[in-house]
């Protein structure tokens, strides 16, 4: 199975909205290759009869009562917001959002 790790890194970086310098890409391609190699080794193990694990503890989730609690004041919410319009956050237009991925 020949994987083009440079292309993989490009793809993942785009999905994660990361901009990588050429030398970073090269380094990451190597790391990604190593990680997948390790994963492949693990996949060689016989896991017949073993339940897939998604969490390390076997404790089920805790439920809380449906009670309303105070929310944050607006000035706290807006503290890290780069652009706002009164009570709203202001973002670049996203209609036809596919364009901004190009």
């Amino acid at each position: 199975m020949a994987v083009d790790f440079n292309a993989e890194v490009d793809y993942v970086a785009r999905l994660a909205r990361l901009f990588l310098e050429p030398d970073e890409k090269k380094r990451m391609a190597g790391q990604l290759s190593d990680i997948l190699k390790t994963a492949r080794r693990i996949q060689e193990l016989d896991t017949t009869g073993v339940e897939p694990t998604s969490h390390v503890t076997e404790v089920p989730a805790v439920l809380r009562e449906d009670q309303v609690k105070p929310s944050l004041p607006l000035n706290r919410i807006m503290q890290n917001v780069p652009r706002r319009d009164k009570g709203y956050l202001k973002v670049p237009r996203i209609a036809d959002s596919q364009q901004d991925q190009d």
Partner: protein
Amino acid sequence: MKYEVVIGLEIHVELLTASKLFCGCSTAFGREPNSHCCPVCLGLPGSLPVFNRRAIELSVTAALALKSEVQLRSRFDRKNYFYPDLPKAYQVSQFDQPLARGGYLAMEYEGKKKLINLERVHLEEEAGKLIHAGDSIIGAGHSLVDYNRAGIPLLEIVTAPELHSGEEARLFLEDLRTVLLYAGVSDCKMEEGSLRCDANISLRPAGSSELGTKAEVKNMNSFRSVELALDYEIKRQQQVLSAGGVVNQETCHWDEEKKQTFSMRSKEGSSDYRYFPEPDLLPLVLEKSFVAELARTLPEMPAKRRERFQEQYNLEKKEAFMFTGNREMGDLFEAVAKIYRDYRNLANWIQGDLLYQLRESGKKIKEVEPALLANLLRLLDEGRINRPVAKELLAEMVQTGTDPVDLVKERGLEQISSRESLLPLLEQVIAENPEAVENYRQGKKKALAFLVGKVMAATKGRADPAELNRLFEEKIQG
């Protein structure tokens, strides 16, 4: 070529909780923007989600109402994508271990009963609300974001591709809404967005078993627009296929103004959501007793109630649909039927005068006191009041909640129907209106109504009109 239409729906409903799915922020609709937000629903670093018990209860209740098999163990996953309505850049949703699998909804279409199967029912969190400034959706400018909605518990219901026209899809959606309203899990207001529907639609040559390429239709904001949008999309795909073209797998937006769908250009790979287990939420494990208790408290579902109404109360099919299509109306009918046995008469009054009075007064069905309605109908049955008085009393009862029995006593509205009481009044009217009497003698029906009206006026509407008719006939024609 003849084509078969294949439609599957994806329905989202906001659950009726007071607080959000993972935090204590209020779910109230229509408040100041960004006034119901906290570190959890804004996805600020270091915050951790905790399940809202009520949201789980409502989800299980909905699944049970839809005969979907509740999974005692289910898992939450992160669905990753960048969009400003998603503060964390991922949505907590369920992927391969949903809360409930399968299920169905019984409906009637074109006179035939049918079952529409469901694929799954799962729980996820709502996204925030975007407001697009400016007049056109494409072009320069910006959007405004309100995160009050972000994190409200949202139930997703996915049907099998078993619907075959815009009308059938609309009827299914209406029935589904009724079931969810009966189950009490959501207020299902399409106009406020607490019920939303997307559709996958494809065409295939009639008789073929392979599915054609589907388009996804979004932005249908009413039951009517679901039907219109799907019918439009059917025609569009038909034209494409008939001309030898191919339907692109794409997302279309329904434009309510222009009454047509528009393609949203989609880019390859843009739907790579990279689902993975949400590390901040442990698997949801439900006790059998928890599910059993919710099953026990589940109210009777509309389809069953519809059949029972026809049998138990001898209602017409159409009436049974009407009374069960609205849970409150059915509840009122049954509450009165417990203490008042003339079901036929009750059904007539509810669908006629009562609904009219509710519309006129702007009151809700829930505000009508069943015992008072029964009292009113009994007064009429026993001949103690006449019909016009009954209608007036109904109006007042709806408006103020006063017992018609008290009103009759207070105002002396009892019907006058005895011969001895009516005859003197009758004779006076005959003496005063010789012309009308003569006209009636010559067979003019209107003249009789005029004479009856005179006595009614003299008694302030309390005289028994049937008895009056009889007496006038006897006196004049006799």
